[in-house]
């Protein structure tokens, strides 16, 4: 072994040791949120979930632009139209960019149900940024440009990737728009739970005594009540003549009535255990006011637990909205949500003939599954000091 290589090795070892020491130092220096992020990054499934959820929310936010059609438009000549087949190869064997064929409609001689057949002589290419149904983006900007679709104006065969429902509305566009309600119900719901849980849990944990006892008993009773029947009863009691927006907020309020209890409990528990911590004592000796102690030292201390508790209750709320709307006692048409879309599927004969109206099912399951994965990753990351 030559002197040079030995020297090099020596250098390399030194560098590695330095790097290691640097890493360790970085670990000790890192703030709480830095540590949480590092730990979260190791949870691959949760990261994937975050990406998928980001896409879902993106679609919901930009639904007007992303959906190929107006979700309320009824295509009268395409009732319960099956998902359109997308081709890249025509009958002569030539390749194209993705396209769809025109359609000829006939009637089944026995059942008189419409039967659709592809007309391979006409080709409609699928394009990006095509003109279609006019919309008003967020009620602000008028446009008619859609992310994708078939160009060619009114005469062209419309693109129904997931088919149409029993009265001829595009299922995919409705799923996109439905995400607005179904995915936001949970967020608004946890915002309400958050406020309720933080205030009541905070009061309970901070004052203790009789107040604590009363709040704890109330929480105990609320957790004893059967969730879904209670939701159903409350939702059914909403006046039918209320406008849709008010029904929507009332529904989220109902969903969060039960959600806050878990948060209140964990806030109380954290406050109780943290009151005895040395750093709180130090702050108190330093002359900080009680309010400042809570706001500056205690809340940052358990913020991560709050986030975990909140993500944990999201899937339940999404499923709750879906179930209630499915039963027709939550939201109702013309509001579009995944649950409302499934009302059609209450009649099993509809499902048997037009199975594609079940498409909201996998979408709901996907959203819930992703929130569960995310919640799992966050739970692990919430306590970054435990390795």
């Amino acid at each position: 072994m030559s002197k040079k290589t030995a020297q090099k090795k020596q250098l390399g070892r030194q560098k590695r040791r330095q790097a290691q020491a640097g890493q360790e130092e970085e670990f000790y220096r890192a703030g709480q949120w830095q540590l949480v992020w590092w730990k979260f990054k190791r949870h691959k499934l949760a990261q994937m979930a975050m990406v998928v959820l980001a896409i879902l929310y993106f679609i919901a936010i930009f639904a007007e632009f992303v959906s190929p059609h107006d979700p309320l438009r009824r295509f009268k000549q395409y009732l319960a139209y099956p998902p359109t087949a997308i081709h890249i190869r025509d009958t002569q064997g030539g390749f194209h960019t993705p396209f769809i064929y025109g359609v000829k409609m006939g009637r089944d001689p026995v059942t008189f149900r419409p039967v659709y057949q592809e007309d391979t002589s006409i080709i409609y290419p699928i394009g990006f940024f095509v003109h279609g149904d006019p919309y008003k983006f967020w009620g602000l900007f008028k446009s008619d440009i859609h992310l994708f679709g078939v160009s060619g104006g009114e005469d062209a065969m419309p693109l129904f990737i997931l088919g149409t429902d029993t009265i001829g509305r595009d299922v995919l566009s409705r799923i996109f728009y439905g995400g607005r309600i179904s995915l936001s119900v949970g967020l608004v719901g946890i915002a309400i739970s958050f406020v309720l849980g933080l205030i009541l849990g905070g009061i309970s944990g901070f004052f203790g005594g009789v107040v604590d006892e009363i709040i704890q008993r109330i929480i105990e009773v609320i957790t004893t009540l059967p969730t879904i029947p209670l939701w159903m009863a409350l939702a059914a009691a909403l006046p039918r003549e209320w406008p849709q927006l008010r029904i929507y907020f009332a529904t989220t309020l109902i969903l969060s009535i039960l959600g806050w209890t878990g948060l209140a409990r964990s806030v109380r528990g954290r406050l109780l255990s943290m009151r005895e911590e040395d750093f709180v004592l130090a702050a108190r000796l330093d002359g900080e006011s009680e309010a400042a102690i809570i706001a500056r030292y205690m809340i940052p201390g358990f913020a991560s637990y709050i986030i975990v508790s909140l993500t944990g209750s999201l899937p339940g709320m999404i499923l709750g909205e879906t179930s209630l709307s499915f039963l027709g006692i939550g939201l109702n048409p013309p509001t579009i949500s995944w649950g409302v879309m499934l009302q059609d599927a209450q009649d099993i004969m509809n499902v048997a003939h037009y199975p594609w109206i079940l498409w909201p099912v996998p979408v709901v399951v996907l959203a819930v599954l992703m929130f569960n994965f995310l919640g799992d990753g966050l739970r692990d990351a919430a306590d970054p000091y435990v390795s």
Partner: protein
Amino acid sequence: MLSYIIQRIIRVIPQLLLISILAFIIIQLPPGDIVTLQLQRLQASGVAVSEAQANALMRQYGMDKPMYQRYLLWISNIITKFDFGYSYTFEKPVGQVIMERMGYTFAIALASAIFTWVVAIPIGIFAAVKQYSLADYVITFLTFVGLAVPAFFLAMIIMYLALTKFGIRAGGLFSPEYMIQPWSWGKFVDLLKHVWLPIILLGTGGVAGTIRTMRAMMLDELRKPYVTVARAKGLSEFQVIMRYPVRLAINPIISGLMWLLPWLFSGGIILEIVLNLPTAGPALYAALRQQDMYMAGAYILITGALTAISAIFSDIMLAVSDPRIRFGGVEGA
């Protein structure tokens, strides 16, 4: 021990009181009072109601009295006469409607609880013992999916497949020809042919949850030194696992046993509606669609009270198994 039980029973009384008040509030929620609605309904169906009859109805429901007296009237009728009010949807007393159906609800809930344990406990043990194996990953993934898919989604998909692939209309508990017949051997066999589907579907969420609890508990136990000792003693691997860690890991499932029934009440309700079962849940739904709130109040009161009472049993069982609770060392669950 006795003092603990008495203490626990005393603590449940304010709980039951609160539950009953909440149930009463729910009854009062819809705008317009019940008697006026009822009168409107009668008039709409062509029944002439005289002033005197209307007043009698008003008095019967205590509409001329303040709210708290109406509550007292309602709750005392329930306690003394088991009278939960009248359901105009079913044109029967609410208590009767619920009692007729509660039997099926109980039977299905109990059967699916047993199904849950029989399936979930062995799988949970297996997944823990084979941690990080392919089987473990598959099981873990499936439990995630199982928790994310509500039972009524599965029911819809299965009903669709049954109808299109086999031409069977799944759902219900009896074939049409047995529906109104009295009990017979044939009817019982017919019941068995239908009942397995709701039992399995109702159990799926519970199976997924129980597998996860069982697996997590087993993993905690398997790391403990007594397992090594048992191995060192020369016990077979099967005996090592079954005789010590399993007995400990199964504890939270046993203590959660009493919570399971009310949980099944709540979770199964939409499934029961989709499958069109003659249980209490769909009756509640039918009543709610007409804003027939006495039914809702009764259902919430009954299931809430059952949960509160079964929580006592659960706590007492925990106290029996854990002396620290018995002697007041730690708060009960």
